[in-house]
């Protein structure tokens, strides 16, 4: 699962997004976002609800076009490059309920025309990596939330993406499941060497997983701060007892707190 493509960075150059709400008023979701998602690194985006974190992820994915600025793919020497292969893990899992676990994980390969035997073998290996061997023939409804999200992770990893997009992947899970999955994901991302972009509400999750944390402002979303996390890897729950961890947590919380309060007190900020 080593990075297949060339090392390509995703640069947001003054990205902004304005859309028309159903009421007809123009909503400024993102404003002048400048940031780099570096190859082989994990970048976390954290910010108050409705600040446009997920929107930024959709723009990076190419599902949304920015209304201002642009998105560029560049090699480390600054040459323009083709878009890297990406795969997303979703907060709502978005598993196909009528497909078995194996068929869900093999779906992307099936779309790409990979022969059945091959894609099923690869899907089985991906499932084994997330400790779900033996659950191939279950339907998503038969699994717990944590297991469903591991299927979601396997479905993305089997595509061997250059960039893994994590859209609040553990947001719908209970706190204990979350802790375990965070550690598992940290290991998977470390060993695969893939580029990852993580959108999250959780400061803990951001610090445990990321190399860089982007703190966003309340709407319109801008990058308020870019914080490097240089804690040693592998990181686990034990890392949270580290003094350096505490300092980072306080720094990010300090930045976020003001923005969250601002989001709560501005009209419609909680949406």
């Amino acid at each position: 699962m080593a990075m297949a493509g060339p090392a390509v960075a995703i640069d947001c150059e003054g990205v902004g997004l304005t859309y028309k709400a159903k009421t007809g008023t123009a909503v400024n979701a993102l404003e002048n976002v400048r940031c780099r998602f570096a190859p082989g690194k994990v970048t976390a985006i954290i910010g108050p609800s409705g600040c446009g974190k997920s929107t930024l992820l959709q723009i990076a994915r190419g599902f949304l076009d920015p209304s201002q600025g642009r998105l560029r793919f560049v090699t480390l020497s600054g040459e323009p490059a083709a878009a890297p292969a990406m795969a997303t893990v979703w907060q709502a899992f978005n598993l196909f309920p009528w497909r078995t676990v194996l068929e869900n994980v093999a779906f992307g390969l099936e779309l790409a025309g990979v022969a059945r035997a091959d894609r099923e073998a690869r899907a089985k290996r991906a499932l084994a990596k997330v400790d779900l061997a033996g659950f191939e023939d279950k339907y998503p409804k038969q699994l717990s939330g944590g297991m469903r999200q591991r299927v979601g992770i396997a479905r993305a990893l089997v595509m061997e993406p250059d960039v893994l997009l994590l859209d609040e992947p553990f947001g719908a899970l209970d706190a204990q499941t979350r802790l375990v999955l965070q550690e598992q994901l940290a290991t998977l991302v470390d060993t695969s060497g893939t580029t990852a972009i993580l959108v999250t509400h959780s400061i803990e999750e951001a610090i445990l997983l990321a190399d860089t944390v982007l703190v966003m402002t309340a709407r319109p979303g801008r990058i308020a701060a870019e914080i490097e996390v240089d804690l040693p890897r592998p990181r686990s729950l034990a890392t949270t007892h580290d003094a350096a961890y505490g300092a980072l947590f306080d720094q990010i919380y300090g930045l976020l707190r003001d923005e969250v309060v601002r989001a709560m007190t501005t009209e419609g900020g909680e949406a």
Partner: protein
Amino acid sequence: MLERPLTDASTPVAGSGWRRLATWLGEPKTLGWLAVAAVLIGWELVVIVFGFNPIYLPRPTRIVLALIEMFRNGGLTTDLLYTLGRVFGGFAIALVFGVAIGIWMAISERFNAIADNFIAALYPLPKVTLIPLLIIWLGTGGPFMLTISALGAVFPIVLNTLLGIRQCDPGLVLAARDLGATRGQIIRMVLLPGAVPSIFAGIRLGLGVSIILVVAAEMVVGKLGLGARLYLAGQVLETEQVFAVLIVLATLGIVITKTQDAIDVWLNRWRVA
């Protein structure tokens, strides 16, 4: 609920046969069939005792004999096959067009706007009222029968396909796009399978209307088919034959309903935990 364990525990060996019979008779399923038997026997006795004219009310035993006779020598099998062919032939046409139109309406706002008004006008119209017009246009042969049958089934199938696709979780479409699905693949591998339970609900409604319409059309114009048979038997006061055809139609209904129930369970296997 409480009675059975109590009686079972205290039942002496001698009385167990009667007790078991009583328990068996009290089972809801047994009771259901016993009620049917009681009505038939009562019917038979009432006709004999009061000496009803069989033109008004024939005895059940005579009806069964007439039914057997019609199957053996009266060509009822041919009639049944004709009716089934018309119902399922028209229904198959409706299924193909209905699903296609439903998908198209779901993915194209323009086509939806075009089709919507026609459906709003045609869907509530009782389709039997189209029989005279269709006879003028198509005559009374196979094309007419297939058209009337298809017309009955197509609207519920269109509307349920549309509904099923609209209810599809947009997150699933996004996930499929993320994994590289083309527009065609999204329709075939996400929207359509997601809509299958809803489409099947449309099929259920549509098939029922098809049967009604084909039998009604056969009563109006047919020389062959269960509807024609029913009507002709009524004309010559062969009441036993009228009842016999009704039995065939009722049995057909039971078979179709039970088959649909079984398919429903299979289709929804991924819905239950």
